[in-house]
């Protein structure tokens, strides 16, 4: 078994961790750095509960190895400070059990950053990669659209 001591840029800080070749980024975040906001839901990319932001783009952290994150900027839910989408989730009751919420928020946040003009089709294309089993998605839709709309006001 091979171990690597690597430096990862997580939430703006350089963190040194020792990982196996086979360790996923999710495993390293949770097990080595105590960042348990990213959730395991399926460990094969089906559910999106482990979504983080990688150089501005959403990434399911169970689908990449920790060593692949070297040299990239990783933002986890813990690194998101007062982002408008977080407040929008609160106000719109866009979560219930909260387990899919970090992944959903990271995906929504990335969407808002990458596509401030996202239309219904674009929103669906992005958000259908995550599963929420509690809500019927209406609240999440309202939350995302409320932030997009606010950003659009000149």
């Amino acid at each position, binding site marked *: 078994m091979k171990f690597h001591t690597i430096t990862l840029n997580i939430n703006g800080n350089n963190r040194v961790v020792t990982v196996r070749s086979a360790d996923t980024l999710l495993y390293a975040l949770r097990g080595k750095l105590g960042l*348990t*906001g990213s959730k395991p839901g*399926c460990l094969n990319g089906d559910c999106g509960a482990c979504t983080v932001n990688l150089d501005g783009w959403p990434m399911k952290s169970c689908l990449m190895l920790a060593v692949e994150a070297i040299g990239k900027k990783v933002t986890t*839910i813990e690194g998101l400070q007062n982002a408008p989408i977080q407040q929008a989730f609160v106000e719109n009751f866009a979560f219930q059990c909260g*387990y899919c919420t970090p992944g959903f928020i990271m995906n929504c946040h990335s969407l808002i950053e990458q596509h401030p003009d996202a239309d219904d089709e674009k929103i*669906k294309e992005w958000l*259908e990669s995550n599963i929420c089993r509690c809500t*019927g998605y209406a609240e999440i839709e309202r939350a995302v659209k409320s932030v997009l709309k606010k950003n659009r006001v000149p």
Partner: protein
Amino acid sequence: MEVIGKSVIRKEALEKVTGRAKYTNDYHSVSMLSGHKVISPFGHAKIVDIDTEEAWKVPGVHAILAGNHYPLTGEAIRDRPVIAVDKVRYHGEVVALVVADSPEQAKTAGDLIKVQYELLPVVNSPTQAFQKDAPLVHERLGEYKKEEDSHPVPDTNIATHIKIRKGNMEKGWSESDTVVEATFSFAPSDHAAMETRCATAEIMPDGNIIIMTSSQAPFMVKRLISDYFGEDLGKIIVHTPFVGGAYGGKAPVQLEILAYLASKEVGGKPVKIFNTREEDIITSPCHIGLDATVKLGADRNGKIRAAEIQHLWDGGAYSDKAIDVTRSGAVDCTGPYNIENVWCDSYCMYTNHPYASPFRGFSHSELSFVIERTMDLLAQKLNMDPLELRYINAIRPGNTTPTRVRLNKSNLGNLPKCIEKVREIFNWDEGPVKEINERFIRVKGVSCSWKTSTIDTNAPSGAIITFNKDGSLNLMTGVIEIGTGTKTVLAQILAERLKMDVDKIHVRMEVDTQTMPEHFKTVASRGTFMAGRAVLNAADDVINQLKEVAACALRAPKEDLEVADSRVFLRDDPAIGLHFKEVGYGYTYPNGNAIGGQIIGRGKYILRHLTHLDPETGAGKPGPEWSVAAYGVEVEFDRRDYTYRVVKACTVVDIGKVLNEKAALGQVMGAMSMGIAFASRETFYFDELGRVLNPQLRTYRPLRYGENPEYLVGFVETPQLDSPYGARGVGEFGLMGMPGALGNALSVAAGVSLNHLPLIPELIWKAKEGET
């Protein structure tokens, strides 16, 4: 009402949107060992040999549990070995458990365990299980220990048989001019909560057993581990942090027992047992399947005179909670209609499928599907509007339930009113069918449902309120925050009673069974009712204590005092009074003397007037109240390839009283989404060996963003007089009517009676092709 009804922001909101909310698997310590389950690859097989020799050679392995005869477990019948011995009865059953330093080591070792099986004939459906020559899933059914309410039939696959005998069937059929009969079936499926189940256990030197689990029933974990293994009840301490979705699936006790046995095996060290998604779907209990036959008879005016119903529930390999689900399905078997002559046989069948647990609605989405499809067949035959047929048969105060409970305005919601409201907001009167073009057609279907919560007759709940020195309050109940927002609603109930700011009430989210009063289980939409009553009881205790201390300090009789706005004051002169911070921790006189002390309010509640059911007739009172709902689903159906889109879904539920509007809407819409997914696509696909072919979220597909319909939700408020502010349960209702309404809409759209779930295009195509 100041706080009740308002969309108060959920108390745990910030934790959940910042990733700080912790779930069971988020708690890990360096010393914690990991368990790995070796599971059966077959539905039914004899275990010939288990070879663990190679597995033991893997570094880091502490223990391998396999082949031991531990005490049998199971809630209604003790029929389940914690780890299979002699034979496996379902695909996914645990045959060995490896405990190692890390999850990778445990898995590596687990993969090296060689289990030799000899295949046995598989019981692949409840109908097959019911046949006389069916292979037996449990050869020793007659020898198992069981509860009073379980009625297993030895030397068969019948785990229980519930009978409903009401009225006179001969009379009922003779009064019926029109009779319809149909059979229905659907296979088991899954809850698919986003958090897979997880449990940890540690046994301390003094014998204390510390468990943490993602459970809806930590108090049950405590009770059952004590029962099964003879441990002192008080030494078992169960912690439950946030639970990442449950929907009934986390009410059974399973991984906790594995964690306990594993910890015991390694000298009490902490051990974690975590389900992979695949294990969560097949190894842990699933959503029950059903084969059913329904026969309804109506007179020439459309009044239903007789109902004969047979349920064959797919309880799976072990009866656990399926027995209660079967009973619950029997007691409300007719749906929300007034029928004087009822005959129902509800059987819980053993099969070689993953075993069943409660699923949101506790048998009611299932029984509603079979009744509501039959109602539409009846309407068709009578040439009546299906909504009108439901309206004229709607159950009303003065009628009796199948188990002969007399209904009144308090213990029954108002179904006619729900139907009227569906008619309005679903725009039923524009007609159920709209031709778009040659290819597409839009069709509306309707349904109704009702439910009482069949739970233990002596189920308790409790609440404790303590004061902080700043005059704020802490609220502790045994209700688990599984996502429903109940703990916030309980704070609202308390704030309303004390007429205070809800922000000054702090809610303890984590539950532990040692320091918090027992709440039976966070199931059956009973949290608000039972814990709400306990909170009101505790609030009254707090008010009394506040007044006692204040009466002394203010030199005024208790009777002259009021409590509001975090103050105790004179009713006739509110300026004279004391703030909570001056009395909540006792009152201190200027010279230093003190009276009172920290105010600790306690409240409790226990269900009343519930009875066991008569084993021959079913007569008895199974639950406290019946709420009701009416539904509509509109589909756009493609006649060319049988695909469809759910355009709109409507639910009107008698909620008694809306306590938190956005939370209530969220409960209803979320349940509708789950119900549509159950009805339209979710099922286990079994092969001939009883193997589940789709235990992943890419092959077992819940609804995703954008696949949801437009939701129309309405509330009717008929107060349940003995419930806090009149509220009725709401969390399950959105789901219960979706399968029936969707089935009804698609049956009209496709022009063929669709009696199976899930309603995938292939099934519709087969039904249609089979017909021509």
